[in-house]
């Protein structure tokens, strides 16, 4: 409680009396005007009549203190406003039968033309049922509490969700870390594997070398036996053997010799595969004819084999070249449809070196006779009437142990062309073919032509 000069105008504009009566009458708030020191009601508005439940006639002319409950409590403040002309407010509680109510009064003076207070205008507010308000407030509080609970529940739910998400994220993080760890481990594992495999490969190569020495020793021992005993037979029993028997003994000896040189060539091959290949001029014509003469199966009428013209002298390695020609000719004769006589045609042509052909690599070894990358190349063709090679098998035929034909039809190790290609690579040459399935094959290989006047070595 207290006075606030700004809350209520102390000086209404002139003519307010008549005009204010109308405004007051229509105001939704209960307002009453009292006059004189006895505070006799001079005017009430409709809202006031409704508030106190009395008619205007019964109210006007009666003292203010009697028309409202606890009105006497207002008298001191009313007197003060009337005496001083200062506005004031007042609140007091009325003990009603059911609920206590609060009455709020705003009072301001009614002034005459000389600004002298002639009465007081009172505006009342009955703040009805406080308990009901409290209940409403309680309800609001309860609702807000419930809402808060809902919010809290939602928050809790969110928290749980978040917690779950954090756990999940942590799991993912852990998994990621584990994966990274595994990746790291795998890198290490790979490295270890490479080292291990390399070691195993070396071991295998070592075993292979050991194997080839075993072959050299164990396969050649019986050959010496064949050679030696054939020789002893010829020497000691010559008088008792006819020419045919003697020729058979010679063939045993020469077959053994041929076998022995083949084994030696294979050994040389595996050795030179790892080391250096020394090239020398080789009389290809003589070499091919020598090889052909060794295989009785390649003679007519079983095989029709033609060498066109005289094959030139090339730069090569005798062992390698024997191997290449033996394998290529053997394939030409072998891969023929059953019942068909193999027709093989061999010829050579001189060519300018291919621009795509790699030069002689120094790591392959020394070359005799001043051979260089320049100069003509000899391409040797071996044409057959065999089963041919499908285009899809083009690369496979050169791969180690790859066999494109059924072993039921054609025996073999799948090494032949692998050896041919490697041997030719080592001699700075190359090999390829033209073929179609069922249409025969034309294999060719290229080597450097030997310089003019080069003396060919004994190739076989």
């Amino acid at each position: 409680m207290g006075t606030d000069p700004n809350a209520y105008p102390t000086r209404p504009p002139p003519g307010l009396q008549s005009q204010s009566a109308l405004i007051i009458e229509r105001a939704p708030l209960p307002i009453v005007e009292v006059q004189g020191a006895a505070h006799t009601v001079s005017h009430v508005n409709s809202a006031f009549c409704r508030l106190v439940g009395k008619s205007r006639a019964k109210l006007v002319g009666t003292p203010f203190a009697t028309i409202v409950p606890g009105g006497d409590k207002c008298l001191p403040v009313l007197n003060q406003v009337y005496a001083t002309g200062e506005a004031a407010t007042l609140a007091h509680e009325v003990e009603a039968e059911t609920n206590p109510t609060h009455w709020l009064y705003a009072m301001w003076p009614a002034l005459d033309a000389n600004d002298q207070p002639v009465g007081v205008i009172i505006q009342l507010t009955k703040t009805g049922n406080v308990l009901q308000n409290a209940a409403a407030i309680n309800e609001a509080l309860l609702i807000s509490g419930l809402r808060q609970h809902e919010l809290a529940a939602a928050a809790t739910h969110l928290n749980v969700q978040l917690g779950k998400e954090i756990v999940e994220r942590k799991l993912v993080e852990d998994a990621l870390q584990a994966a990274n760890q595994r990746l790291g481990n795998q890198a290490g594992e790979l490295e270890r594997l490479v080292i291990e495999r390399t070691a195993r490969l070396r071991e295998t190569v070592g075993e292979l070398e050991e194997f080839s020495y075993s072959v050299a020793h164990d396969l050649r021992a019986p050959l010496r036996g064949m050679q030696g005993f054939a020789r002893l037979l010829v020497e000691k029993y010559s008088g008792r053997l006819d020419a045919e028997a003697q020729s058979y003994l010679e063939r045993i000896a020469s077959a053994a010799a041929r076998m022995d040189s083949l084994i030696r060539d294979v050994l040389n091959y595996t050795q030179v595969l790892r080391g250096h290949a020394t090239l020398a001029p080789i009389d290809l014509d003589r070499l091919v004819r020598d090889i052909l003469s060794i295989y009785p199966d390649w003679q007519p009428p079983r095989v029709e084999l033609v060498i066109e013209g005289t094959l030139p002298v090339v730069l090569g390695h005798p062992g390698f070249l024997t191997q290449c020609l033996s394998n290529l000719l053997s394939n030409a004769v072998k891969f023929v449809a059953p019942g068909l006589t193999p027709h093989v045609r061999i010829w050579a042509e001189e060519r300018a070196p291919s621009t795509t052909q790699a030069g002689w690599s120094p790591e392959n070894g020394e070359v005799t006779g001043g051979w260089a990358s320049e100069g003509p190349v000899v391409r040797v063709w071996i044409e057959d009437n065999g089963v041919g090679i499908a285009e899809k098998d083009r690369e496979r035929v050169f791969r180690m142990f790859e066999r494109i034909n059924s072993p039921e039809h054609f025996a073999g190790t799948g090494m032949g062309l692998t050896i041919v290609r490697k041997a030719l690579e080592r001699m700075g040459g190359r090999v390829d073919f033209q073929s179609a399935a069922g249409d025969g094959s034309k294999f060719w290989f290229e080597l450097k032509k030997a310089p003019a006047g080069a003396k060919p070595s004994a190739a076989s």
Partner: protein
Amino acid sequence: MPAPLTILLVEDDSGSVLFFQNAAEEAGITNPIHVAEDGRKALDYLEGANEFADREKFPLPGLVVLDLRLPRATGFEVLKQMRANPDLPKINVIMLTASAAEEDIDKAYALGANAYLVKPLRLEELRSIVEAIKLFWLTHNHIPR
């Protein structure tokens, strides 16, 4: 004139033994030739062990012709044990083997071989080799006693 020195031929292949004996006969070698068919027997012979205890019957050889690939003990093992045995005099050892592998040659000399010969395919070549052995190792060469 001292008794002709004994030759110990260490060779498992009977054909090779026969060819060597034939070549020795053709070359006119009269020295006794004893044969050990595996590496173990060769060492027993050299050490006078087991069946070879009688030095009258099995005199210490003056020359060993040694194959490399042998049953029970390889030529390298025989050579190694021979050279490691302080009771054995320095006996000349000629390797006669099918292997011409450089590493075998190096290893044989490293273990104390005195010569390294590669078995030829033809009997005629073996005869010329055995003739050379007779001339060098059995005629002109002096051995420690």
